[in-house]
């Protein structure tokens, strides 16, 4: 009994810290609707700053504390609100989730790069700030409590009291509570909701910073993993408080902190379960709370009542194609696929085949995200776990029972589907963010307990005392299903061991899975899910059983993840618990969301992007791997602007451009027949054509090495032609405007500040349109791509080994892409100019091809009359 009390006292302070973060979570959730999963990362940031300033830079304790907690904390919160979440007030929960996940992924590696990698030890104690000696131990009767622990408790109680007073008695507190209900309605009442949210973010970040600094000495180190997991414990505590009650949240944190310590203390010390229970208990508790607490699972994420005024999501890009384009795509697609296969089988090196196979394998895993999130609009963060189940089972069956890999893969998929269904039955009553949290909890449980189990210990082997008289011993249970900590070998299928043959196998599996996903999407399940996405209430009213549909598609997606996982295991010929960590799964989801979650295209792009950017960063740029996570984390933040995914957006833009280009040519033909074609009009293909020899330069360089003379010819002629063309453009524009930058001066600018022309020329064309009173056919934004690429190219040259540069395949591809970007810019500018001249010569037929100002938003073909208006 005394033992338990001692454990309780030890666990109490950690529980307090959990409660602090939890309160911050609830605060931002209540005021901005964002469940900020990145608070753990923010805590980590402040703890790292504190440690750095105090230990490495020898600042006085109070100064380091002040900067780390009172300055850095709220500052980060301010930046997050102003630069990010302010634009997402009425966005869907998925956008908010993707953004906070992106931050979760990006902040820890950023901190690590800034402060140097790895775990930092001996975090300074905060106790001296309260006048308590850091090493002092207090005795209450027979129980001890260290200074750090005591300080954590005191700090938490003070904070909670202050917050309670804030909410109850101040105007700001009341406003904070109102803002979450409806920011727009509150604004109608005259309250500046932006300021309220900003205050809430700064306050919550302060809490996160404080908890980071307080918890560090309790954990004796500062590392990303423990801090990031702090957030899950906080989420569990917040769930305990039903996301509405701060006192209950505090209690939840305490229950968790104490429970962790007590249970860990009662288990045999070095068992996997004991090591796993400490991180796993929050997840378990969160999972159970989400499923069994009616206040949580009945809660519908009530959107802003005025949010209905936002326009609906655009249709899939493919539906914008006209018949000609569709036929073209249908013809080209098999050629492209065949080319890709032949390339891998006969042309590329083994290393490259391995890389591309990796991309394809990831595409299969990502198809599980396409299947679940793309079809149902819900998010699951447990993908890594299901992939791991598939891989481990394939490996176990192969090594223990000699089952052929491909059969093992199918069995693994089936097992994953069953586990998925079992998980789904309770969890899929939840929706939105709560389902995401439940799957996150599941993934983390799998990571810390299920995967590491290796059959060496008795999982249920703790004794339960009954009335102190006797003990109840549960039957022994030695599971070793998923490989344990050492992992398991996963062999490739018989006869398909070489990289090329395995590539074919993977390609085959991918094709089958892709077809299945498309069949489901076009089938009744897909249609029912589409209805549910449109209006779940209405779907139920016509007889659709929403929960069952979601369970089905969740199990389906789990099976696909299992298949993908098996393939990944086979690719690396190994699977261990370290391969399937939850953060990776989160990263995958963020990546696919960003690139495009509704189409197979998006999954393929995501898989290839993962592999190719990895290659770019590690092999070409020689930068640390963490840059990768930072890039994609930051990329997630742009998700808000393109919720349909980057791939969809680009596809739509390019389809739109092609359709417009054809129409423009038709217009020109008509005018030419009438004899009215303006002389400045030039067909785009005749402009871009002579510049295309540039494309040969990298190809020649790759295959034949540097060839100065040939290069000089291949580069000089197109380059001179492009200068001439730019000169003509400036000249024509200047002639029409009567002012602006004249021809020769324009040419000089072009030569001197080549990069400037990329934005300057489009700006001139836009200005010309403004002066004529026409719609702008182009904007300066088209110059971003070539400039960005040029800068990137310079950076690349700086970082890579220029000696062997021409032979490096990656550089070849990148140079080709860069040249294509340039040619595309040329095409866009010429098209805009053509449109301008045609509109000037023939104003009546203008207007059916204008580009929106930034060419970023392309309107859907149907008229968007809001349902609340007239006919």
């Amino acid at each position, binding site marked *: 009994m005394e033992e338990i009390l001692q454990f309780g006292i030890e666990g109490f302070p950690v529980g307090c810290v959990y409660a602090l973060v939890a309160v911050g979570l609830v605060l931002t959730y209540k005021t901005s609707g964002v469940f900020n999963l990145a608070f753990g990362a923010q805590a980590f940031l402040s703890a790292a700053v504190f440690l750095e300033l105090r230990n490495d830079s020898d600042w006085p304790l109070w100064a380091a504390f002040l900067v780390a907690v009172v300055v850095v904390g709220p500052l980060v919160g301010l930046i997050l609100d102003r630069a990010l979440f302010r634009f997402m007030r009425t966005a869907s929960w998925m956008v908010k989730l993707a953004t906070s996940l992106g931050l979760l992924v990006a902040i820890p590696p950023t901190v690590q790069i800034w402060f140097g990698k790895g775990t930092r030890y001996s975090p300074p104690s905060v106790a001296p700030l309260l006048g308590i000696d850091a090493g002092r131990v207090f005795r209450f009767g027979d129980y001890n409590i260290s200074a750090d622990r005591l300080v954590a408790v005191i700090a938490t109680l003070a904070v909670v009291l202050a917050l309670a007073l804030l909410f109850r008695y101040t105007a700001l507190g009341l406003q904070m509570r109102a803002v979450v209900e409806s920011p727009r309605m509150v604004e109608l009442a005259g309250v500046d909701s932006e300021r309220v949210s900003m205050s809430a973010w700064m306050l919550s970040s302060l809490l996160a910073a404080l908890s980071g600094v307080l918890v560090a000495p309790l954990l004796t180190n500062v590392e990303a993993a423990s801090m990031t997991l702090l957030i899950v414990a906080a989420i569990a505590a917040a769930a305990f408080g039903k996301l509405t009650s701060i006192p209950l949240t505090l209690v939840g944190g305490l229950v968790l902190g104490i429970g962790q310590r007590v249970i860990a203390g009662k288990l045999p010390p070095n068992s996997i379960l004991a090591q796993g229970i400490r991180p796993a208990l929050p997840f378990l508790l969160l999972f159970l709370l989400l499923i069994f607490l009616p206040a949580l699972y009945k809660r519908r994420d009530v959107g802003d009542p005025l949010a209905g005024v936002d326009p609906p999501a655009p249709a899939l890009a493919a539906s914008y194609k006209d018949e000609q384009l569709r036929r073209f795509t249908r013809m080209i697609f098999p050629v492209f696929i065949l080319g890709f296969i032949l390339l891998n089988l006969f042309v590329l090196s083994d290393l490259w085949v391995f890389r591309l196979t990796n991309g394809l394998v990831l595409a299969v895993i990502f198809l599980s995200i396409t299947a679940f999130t793309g079809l149902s609009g819900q998010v699951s963060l447990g993908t890594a776990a299901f992939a791991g189940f598939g891989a481990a089972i394939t490996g176990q069956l192969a090594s223990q029972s000699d089952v052929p890999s491909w059969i093992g893969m199918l069995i693994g998929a089936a097992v994953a589907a069953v586990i998925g269904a079992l998980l789904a039955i309770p969890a899929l009553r939840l929706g939105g963010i709560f389902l995401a949290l439940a799957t996150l909890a599941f993934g983390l449980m799998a990571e810390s307990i299920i995967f590491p189990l290796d059959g060496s210990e008795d999982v249920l082997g703790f004794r339960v005392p009954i009335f102190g008289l006797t003990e109840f011993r549960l039957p022994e249970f030695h599971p070793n299903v998923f490989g344990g900590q050492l992992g398991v070998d996963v062999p490739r299928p018989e006869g398909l061991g070489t990289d090329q043959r395995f590539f074919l196998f993977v390609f085959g599996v991918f094709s089958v899975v892709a077809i299945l996903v498309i069949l489901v999407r076009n089938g009744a399940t897909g249609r029912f899910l589409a209805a549910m996405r449109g209006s779940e209430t209405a779907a139920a*009213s*016509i007889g659709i059983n929403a929960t069952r549909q979601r369970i089905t598609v969740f199990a389906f997606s789990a099976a696909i993840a299992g298949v993908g996982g098996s393939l990944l295991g086979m690719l690396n010929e190994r699977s261990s618990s370290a391969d399937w960590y939850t953060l990776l799964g989160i990263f995958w989801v963020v990546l696919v969301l960003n690139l495009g979650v509704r189409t197979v295209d998006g999954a393929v792009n995501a898989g290839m992007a993962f592999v190719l950017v990895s290659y770019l960063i590690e092999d070409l740029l020689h930068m640390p791997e963490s840059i990768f996570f930072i890039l994609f984390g930051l990329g997630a933040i742009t998700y808000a602007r393109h919720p349909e995914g980057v791939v969809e957006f680009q596809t739509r833009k390019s389809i739109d451009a092609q359709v417009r280009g054809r129409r423009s040519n038709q217009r020109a033909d008509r005018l030419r027949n009438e004899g009215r074609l303006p002389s400045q009009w030039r067909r785009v293909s005749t402009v871009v054509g002579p510049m295309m020899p540039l494309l040969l330069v990298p190809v020649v360089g790759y295959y034949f090495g540097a060839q100065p003379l040939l290069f000089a010819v291949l580069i000089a002629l197109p380059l001179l032609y492009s200068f001439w063309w730019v000169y003509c453009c400036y000249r024509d524009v200047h002639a029409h405007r009567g002012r602006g930058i004249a021809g020769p001066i324009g040419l000089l600018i072009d030569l001197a500040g080549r990069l400037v022309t990329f934005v300057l020329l489009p700006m001139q064309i836009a200005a010309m349109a403004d002066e004529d009173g026409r719609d702008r056919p182009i904007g300066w934004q088209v110059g971003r791509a070539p400039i960005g690429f040029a800068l990137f190219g310079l950076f690349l040259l700086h970082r890579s080994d220029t000696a062997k540069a021409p032979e490096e395949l990656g550089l070849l591809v990148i140079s080709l892409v860069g040249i294509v970007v340039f040619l595309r810019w040329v095409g866009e500018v010429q098209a805009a100019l053509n449109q301008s001249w045609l509109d000037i010569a023939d104003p009546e037929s203008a207007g059916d091809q204008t580009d929106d100002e930034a060419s970023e938003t392309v309107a859907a073909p149907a008229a968007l009359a809001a349902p609340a208006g007239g006919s």
Partner: protein
Amino acid sequence: MTTAPETAVPGATPDGGAALLDARGITKRFAGITALHEVSLDVRPGELVGLIGPNGAGKTTFFNCLLGMEHPDAGRVNFDGRDITNLPVYKRARLGFGRTFQRLEVFVGLSVLEHFLLADRARHGDVPLWRDLLRMSRTTADETGRADAMLEALGIRDLADKPIEALSLGRSRLVELGRALMTQPKLLLLDEPSSGLDRKETAALAQRLRRLAEESGTAVLLVEHDIDLVQQVVSRIFVLDFGTMIASGPTEDVLSDAAVRKAYLGDMV
């Protein structure tokens, strides 16, 4: 003019005919406020019934209890002889409930035709995934035929392939109605269908509802504010005020009742 009848036989009405929908003694409390107190209502097969009352009277809450979106704290709801008090929404739909929404609930992103096809398919129950994988769940010619017939009946043939978000409110309401009708409901529950419609559209709606009841024998329960519409359509009215049913009976009787006028109609001549 009578108050809500208490009959001995569940499901039976004073005339002896079996009720299609029979809600008795529905009580619902929200955090200390009693939104509904012992409210009862019945609808016979093929009958057109109205539910009116001031704002805040509890109409929406009662409606939600009938539909399964809320669970009453006390009372029972019987439909076609079955106790459906605790049945989830989608199951009630499959038993024969159809409904429209006060705030438009359409399947954004789908076309009008797809709305109808979905409703037709959904009423048969869950579709197993394997059928999709074997391409066995495609839209049949029969289904397209029925959907076309519905489009024709509502006079919106030309809108078949238009995305729903491109339609005006009046037209969207029609689509909602058609969607509900595609499930071949025995009882159609309409939640303030006239809100946002102009006089012409409301009159057209009234006509449509009357014809519907005549031709297909579908019963209708109409929750409404527009007294004109109610008068034109329903044969019996229930009046709810402050959570209790203050009147029920044939339309004209109720509308001329003094208590009803005082509470709701405002002492008109």
